[in-house]
Structure formats: structure tokens, C-alpha cells
């Protein structure tokens, strides 16, 4: 009898884990907007990866005989002021958008979380300095701060990544610091310290893994907002590398041809809105699914 019990125990635990994950998925995808967002993100990522196969033309091929054409069978979204195919440039533009999101969130996440971890774990004067510094960064309009940093560093896509990374960092730092402050109070942290675990071990082995869920939500949302910020800078002509297609720069150059072909500015904007909206919807879905207070309600 007791033997049978032992054999069923791990099995039960296993089942419970699966159902927990299934519950998460069920809550997450219970609303159609989240499914819509996921589909948009997946198609954008696929579009970025398979751009050479999907784009009907070379995005940088100049054809002066076909300048600013309206949509036609040959060019579904028309052509721009240099006769380049707009659809192909939109597809290639998704490469910059998807990379910007990933790179910026990685930079901001790693630096921000690390500083937040230090501030939350040690508190004291070092924590105060870090957190007040974040307050100072947050009291500057993100766009102005990122613009200033990108320009001072000298432009170029890489510099824009760094500038955006710094601009997005404070959120991670604050959130991480708050999480660490609350997780730190748990008995198991005290236990780990008592048995002689080093600071580094306590931080990375016991604290960090327990802070992730709320950070996932911010990461998802920021993937979208980083795209928006990069589009603003490339719209202003900062960080772009002509002739590389970026959605922000396309909106800018189309601006002069609003009367002849408004699609030049409108289409890249729609691409931005769709992708950023998708990240927002998925981020919200994630938040609902991770929120313990909503458990069992949906």
C-alpha cells in the first residue's frame, strides 16, 4: 500500500505541473485579441527571417522610370520616390523592427535588472544612489533623452540601440528592485544566508529566478515600445543607414509625396501600429495569465 503511494506521488506532481501550464495557456489565449496579437508577431518574425523569399523585389532597387506609382498588379503597394517597391521595403523593414525590439530589451533588461538587483539586495547608500539616478533618468522625456544620447554618440544604428537601451533601462531597474525587496523577506532567503550561501549565490540562485513573472510582462510590452521609439528616431533621420529600409524613415520620406501617393507614409505607419499593438495585446494577456488574483475567474 505504502509502496503504491510512493509510486503515484511523483506522477501526481507531474500532472499538476502540466495542468498549471495548461491553465496558464488557457487563460492567456482565452481572448481573441491575444490570439490576434500572437499571429501578428509570428508573421512579422517570419517576414523578417524570410524577407528575401517573400519580397517580390529587391527593396533597394532604384528604378527612376517607376517613381511614385499608385498600387498596381505589378507593385501591390506602389513605388516610392526612387521607384523602389513599397511592399518589399515594408517586408525588409520588419527586420529592423524585430531586431530593435530584441536588442534594446536585452540591453535595457540586463543592465536595468542588474542595477535593480544590487539596489534591492544591498539597499543602503548604494541602493539610494542607483534608484535616485533612475528617478533622474525617468524625469526626462524618454524621446528627448534617447535623441540626445544617440546624437551625442554620433548616430548610426548601433548608437541608437545603446541610446534606446539606456532610455528603457529605468523601468527594469525599478521593477527588479521592488521585486527583490519583497522576495528578500521570504524565509528561504534567510535560510540560504544562514547556511552560509554567498551574496552572489543568494542573488542569482534564490532571488532572481523568483522575480521573473512580472518582468515578462514588461519585456513583452517594451518589445513594442522600443519599435515605436526607434521609428521616431529614424523618422527624424537619426540612426538610419540609407538605403536600408526602416518604417520610420519610410514615413518621413513619404511625407513629401502625401498629395501624389499618401500610401507611402500611411502603409509603414500601419505596419508599426499593428506590431506594437500586437505586443501590447500579448503583454496584457500575459499579465492576466500571471496574475494570481485572476486565477479561476477566467
Amino acid at each position, binding site marked *: 500500500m505504502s509502496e503504491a503511494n510512493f509510486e503515484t506521488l511523483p506522477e501526481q506532481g507531474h500532472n499538476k505541473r502540466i495542468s498549471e501550464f495548461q491553465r496558464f495557456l488557457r487563460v492567456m489565449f482565452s481572448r481573441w485579441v491575444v490570439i490576434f496579437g500572437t499571429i501578428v508577431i509570428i508573421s512579422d518574425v517570419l517576414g523578417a527571417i524570410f524577407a528575401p523569399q517573400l519580397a517580390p523585389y529587391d527593396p533597394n532597387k532604384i528604378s527612376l522610370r517607376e517613381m511614385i506609382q499608385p498600387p498596381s498588379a505589378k507593385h501591390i503597394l506602389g513605388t516610392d520616390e526612387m521607384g523602389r517597391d513599397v511592399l518589399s521595403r515594408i517586408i525588409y523593414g520588419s527586420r529592423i523592427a524585430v531586431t530593435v525590439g530584441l536588442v534594446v530589451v536585452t540591453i535595457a533588461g540586463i543592465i536595468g535588472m542588474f542595477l535593480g538587483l544590487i539596489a534591492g539586495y544591498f539597499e543602503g547608500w548604494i541602493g539610494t544612489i542607483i534608484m535616485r539616478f533612475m528617478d533622474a533618468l525617468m524625469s526626462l522625456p524618454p524621446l528627448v533623452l534617447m*535623441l*540626445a544620447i544617440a546624437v551625442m554618440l554620433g548616430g548610426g544604428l548601433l548608437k541608437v540601440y545603446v541610446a534606446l537601451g539606456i532610455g528603457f533601462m529605468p523601468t527594469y531597474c525599478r521593477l527588479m528592485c521592488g521585486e527583490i525587496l519583497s522576495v528578500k523577506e521570504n524565509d528561504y532567503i534567510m535560510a540560504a544566508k544562514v547556511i552560509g550561501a554567498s551574496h552572489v549565490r543568494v542573488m542569482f540562485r534564490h532571488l532572481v529566478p523568483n522575480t521573473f513573472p512580472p518582468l515578462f510582462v514588461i519585456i513583452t510590452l517594451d518589445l513594442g515600445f522600443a519599435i515605436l521609439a526607434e521609428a521616431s528616431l529614424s523618422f527624424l533621420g537619426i540612426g538610419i543607414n540609407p538605403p536600408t529600409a526602416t518604417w520610420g524613415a519610410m514615413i518621413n520620406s513619404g511625407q513629401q509625396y502625401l498629395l501624389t501617393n499618401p500610401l507611402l507614409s500611411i502603409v509603414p505607419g500601419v505596419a508599426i501600429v499593428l506590431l506594437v499593438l500586437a505586443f501590447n495585446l500579448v503583454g496584457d494577456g500575459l499579465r492576466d495569465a500571471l496574475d494570481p488574483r485572476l486565477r479561476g475567474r477566467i
Partner: protein
Amino acid sequence: MASFLLRRVIQTIVVVFLVTIISFLLLHIIPGDPVIRILGMHATKDQIAQLRHELGLDLPIIQQYIQWIWNIFHGDFGKSFVYHENVRSLIFERFPVTLYLVSVSLILSTIIGIIAGVSSAVKRGGAIDSIISLLANTGVAIPTFWLAIVGVYIFGLKLGWLPIQGYTSPFVDFGQSVKQMIMPVFATAVPNIAIVARQTRSSMLETIRQDYVRTAKSKGLRQRIVLYKHALRNALIPVVTLVGMTLTFLIGGEVLVETICNIPGVGRLLIRAALDKDYLIVQGGVLIIGTAICIINLLVDITYGWIDPRIRYK
């Protein structure tokens, strides 16, 4: 109240001090020699030495900071390399225009956002809630500059209802001023309405669950009184304290819209300066905007601490 006031003032001074450090460091993250970047490759040795001395770059870094901040306190933000004018007067001349547009946009978007958020929360799960939530999600996803361009195209070029660019002071020609303002204010307000609506909705839902709301309901008060007198007033606290954050986003949008709609404000100046590598204007702009936002945050917090005693003891 006094200790709360003192604490907040000291906190603000610390943050403003750090804002000055950030602005100061901006000039120092320029790779290579900023003087050569400003003067170009063909500058003579004398010119380089002179500008370096003018900018104080020949001093040790701490002394540089002290001298720089000393000059700032005396109103000397340096001279623009492009306009050959004092940076301070360049910025302050344009400040009222930006302040005016940002305030109008802030007030309108806060009011509309709160109304939308409350309607959404009250009808939670219903059709209105879904529509407002989706609109709010879309609102934060729309690039301000794109919205301004689409607005210019539809209402300016196609329908001809609104002027497509420019700015007129309301004291000169009120009608024209309002007409020219509609587009830029609309473009900057939309994302902000979305942010405020989302915040109001979640804060309202949180408040409705509180015990005192249940008590108010169970003692037989009418639904409207419970919602607007008991719930809404408390739900608005996090919304209003969020003003500082929404303000930073509004200014970001304003900077872009001023460029598109050709409005002679600080935003357009900043972007021109950024593109012309007119570093001191960028530095001065960051410093002034950052300090202004810190002070506004302080005022918002003090007002709220004064209205709501709970804030003081947090």
C-alpha cells in the same frame, strides 16, 4: 505635513542634481574630441584651444562640472554654434509655445482619458469596455508623428478644414490659433488619452473591490453616488500622480509634432540642434525640460499630500 514637504523637497533637489549630472555628461559621451566635432577638421590650433577653453574642457572633470553649473546658475548655458546666440534665450523664447500646447493637450487628454477609463470600468466585460480597451491599446501603439501626418493629409490636404502647419499666438488671432492647434494637440493627446484611460480603468476596478465601497453600497446609497463620490475620488489618486510620467511622454510627442507642423517651439529647436550637432542647445534643452518636470512632479505630490493625508505617511 512639514516633514513630508521637507522630504519631498530634498528628494527633488537630489533628483535635479542628478539631472544636471546627466546633462553635463551628455557632452562627455561624444566619442573623440567634441571640439573637433564642432569645429570640423579644418580648424586651426588656436581656434581649437580657444573653444576648448570657452567650454572649460581644459579643466579636470570635477572642476568642469562646478564651473558649468556655476555658469548655469548665472543664466549662461553657453552659445549656440549654429545661431551664434545665447542658448538660454533661444530656449526660453520658444518655451511658452511648447508649454501652452503641452498644457492644453495634457488637460484635454486627462479629462477624456478619465471619462473613458471610468465608463470602461463601470461596464466591465461589456461591449463598451471591450471597445474602449481595444482603442486604448491601439492609442498607445500609434506613433505620434504618423498620426500628425495622417491628420495633415486628411483634414488639411484632402478636406481642407484645418491649416496644415504653423503657429499663431492666441493673443494675436484666437480663431486661427485654435484652428492651427487642433491637429498637433490631437496627435499628442491620443496616446496620452490611452495611457490615462488604462490607468483609470484598472485603478477604478481595484477601488470598487474595497470594503468601504461595499459598505457604501450595502447601506443603500445609490449606485451613482457610490461610484462617483466614494470610488472615483479614491481611484483618481494613482491617475493624478501619474501626471509626471504622462507629461514626459507628451513632451516627447510634442517634440515630433512641432517638427511636422512647423511650430516654433522648444521641440523643433531641439531636433534642429540635434541634427546640426549644435550640442549645447541639446544639453541645455535636456537640463531645462528635466528640471521643469521634476518641479511639476513635486507640485503634484505636494498638492496630493495636502488633499490626501495617506500620501504623506507613505
